[in-house]
């Protein structure tokens, strides 16, 4: 209902950027200024490139995750999906001598299939997505470990280097992976805002039953968003392999929490029906900045997750406050 109507009935002054995004831009600007003043190595090209390159995989998966969460769903299996893709692609790169394009194609195929399984379980099983994807998290991790066969994949060639964080992964100093993430985010933003089927995602998140009665193909939409998230997880896995080297058995663990943190900090409501991809891009950037800041200030690395936790609480808390004010108007 309101969730469907909201983007059309914005206040005239508000454009593409409002609410959470504006706050986030402010917070990031503040953090960067403070860091620039206190650490003289912060505003070096290599540090900024490093932040963007590490943020890129989180952003890429976050683009899909935003769509999933907008439908009032969630996908906690993305970390395991990435592990499966990484081990398959890494082995093919090393043993099969795969070229760049086939490798990316293989990654997209594997990721898409795993995402489609999630989508089928959620769409046809009509069960709560968090529980189902917890299940597939275990299943996919098993598949990945089975393919690893008890040892890591070492000596992966640098075929996917153009997507990695190294020197060949940059043009004009900007990491390709991050540019790709921004392009994907822009596509998803346009889709969710201007294409009817994209707008249906908000309707499903607002009230799936009402959306179905209004003629939205709920099952088909759910299948699509989970499959797209799987595809994007496959793409993010390519960025993580990047320059090659070693793919450890722990690949991708904890990724789902980082991605969900980025999406939620970006202002997407976990109850569905509200949120934008732009917020997710900024949320991922904030998480990346915090991680880099903790390292640069030579604080213990373990503090990073404390700050991420606090940022989640502050971001969601301020969103709750705004929501309450909106209702009382």
């Amino acid at each position: 209902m309101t969730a469907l109507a909201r983007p059309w009935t914005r206040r005239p002054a508000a454009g593409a950027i409002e609410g959470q995004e504006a706050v986030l831009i402010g917070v990031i600007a503040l953090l960067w200024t403070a860091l620039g003043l206190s650490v003289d190595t912060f505003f070096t090209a290599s540090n900024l490139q490093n932040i963007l390159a590490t943020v890129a995989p989180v952003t890429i998966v976050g683009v899909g995750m935003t769509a999933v969460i907008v439908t009032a769903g969630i996908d906690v299996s993305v970390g395991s999906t990435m592990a499966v893709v990484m081990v398959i692609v890494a082995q093919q790169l090393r043993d099969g001598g795969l070229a760049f394009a086939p490798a990316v194609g293989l990654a997209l195929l594997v990721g898409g299939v795993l995402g489609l399984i999630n989508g089928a379980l959620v769409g046809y099983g009509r069960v709560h997505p968090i529980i189902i994807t917890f299940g597939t998290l275990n299943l996919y991790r098993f598949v990945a470990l089975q393919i690893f066969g008890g040892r890591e994949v070492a000596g992966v060639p640098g075929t996917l280097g153009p997507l990695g964080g190294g020197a060949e992964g940059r043009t004009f100093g900007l990491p390709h992976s991050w540019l790709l993430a921004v392009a994907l985010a822009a596509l998803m933003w346009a889709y969710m805002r201007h294409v009817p089927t994209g707008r249906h995602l908000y309707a499903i998140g607002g009230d799936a039953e009402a959306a179905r009665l209004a003629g939205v193909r709920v099952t088909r939409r759910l299948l699509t968003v989970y499959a797209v998230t799987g595809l994007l997880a496959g793409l993010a896995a390519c960025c993580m392999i990047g320059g090659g080297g070693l793919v450890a058995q722990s690949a991708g663990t904890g990724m789902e929490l980082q991605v969900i943190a980025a999406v939620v900090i970006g202002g997407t409501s976990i109850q569905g029906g509200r949120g934008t991809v732009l917020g997710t891009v900024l949320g991922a950037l904030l998480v990346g900045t915090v991680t880099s800041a903790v390292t640069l200030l030579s604080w213990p690395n373990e503090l990073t997750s404390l700050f991420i936790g606090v940022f989640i609480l502050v971001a969601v808390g301020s969103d709750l406050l705004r929501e309450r004010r909106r209702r009382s108007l």
Partner: protein
Amino acid sequence: MMPQSTSEPADTTTRDGAAGARPPSPLARLGRLLLHDRVALLVLLLAVLVAWMKVLDRGGYLLGPYDAAYMAAALESFVPLCILALAEMLVILSGRGGIDLSVGAMVSLTGMAFGFMVGEWGWPLWPSLVAALAFGTALGAVNGFLVAVLGFPSLIATLATGYAYSSLALVSHDNAPISTKPVQDLHDLTSMVRLPLGLPPVPRQFFTFLLPCAVLVWLLVNRTAFGRRLYAVGTNETAARYAALSVGGVRFRAFALAGLLSGVAAVVTVGQFASARPDAGTVGNGMALPAITIAVLGGVAITGGVGRVGGVIVAALLVVWLNAGILLYFEGSAGSRYQLLALGVLLIASTLLNAVAGRRRRRRTR
């Protein structure tokens, strides 16, 4: 405050087995019983599992004997898992998507606090035990405050506090475990006890920690006003509010109790490892995920208001004995891989089953 009935915690499986109209054939009746009475289904699965492992054992497929002594020793991992699954049950029962992703982190952080008290500050056992449980309750109360008072979705609140607690646990002792002499002596809490009547030795914590927790939780949800309010709030929040129940208060207490139970699990874990490990509850996939799996497998509906203590306990037993059997069947690291597979398959199958059972229940009552 809460009137407690004097009746003993009798067999929980017979509560609704006899209800409902008489179905036509015995087979259909069995099918319906298995679909609607989760405890009956789980007991059947448990019997099948043990029988099958016995067959494999006879046939010489196993690396070691799957006998009573091995099954009793496997109860060591059963105790913390079952306590945490009961904690998840309380939170999930309270409804509105209630879930607690932070139990593993609470186990880590409370375990570190307990380790500091016993191992670094030299407190005696009993005061530190009480203080650790209070500490765990406080951590749970933070979750409860965020969810019940401030209105955070519980998934987000506990995701964030889980991050924060696990980070604090790691930072508190520079990422190193506390294993001074007094902490190592805590291992006595979890030694094996010999039983009469030729029964195999059983871990002590089964009697000193798990049984009291299980009985108290059973009494709490089945025999107190709080328990009824918990089911009421989880089943229909609006109706509960119109019935003048303090919805926020009930939910807050559910989260605080989950913290208390995590504290108990933390103490057990410290005793078991003979050291307070900063990543005790968060290493690998952590403890929260298995705990949620067991709760759902035990018939706790993720939508709230449906779930029983007996189901959760039998589900925990099933998972633990299945895991123990898998370790005997596969050599090396393959065993822990197949445990992941088993956990995932069980979780998906039980969720789909819950959905089917719930849909049939709604159709019948309509």
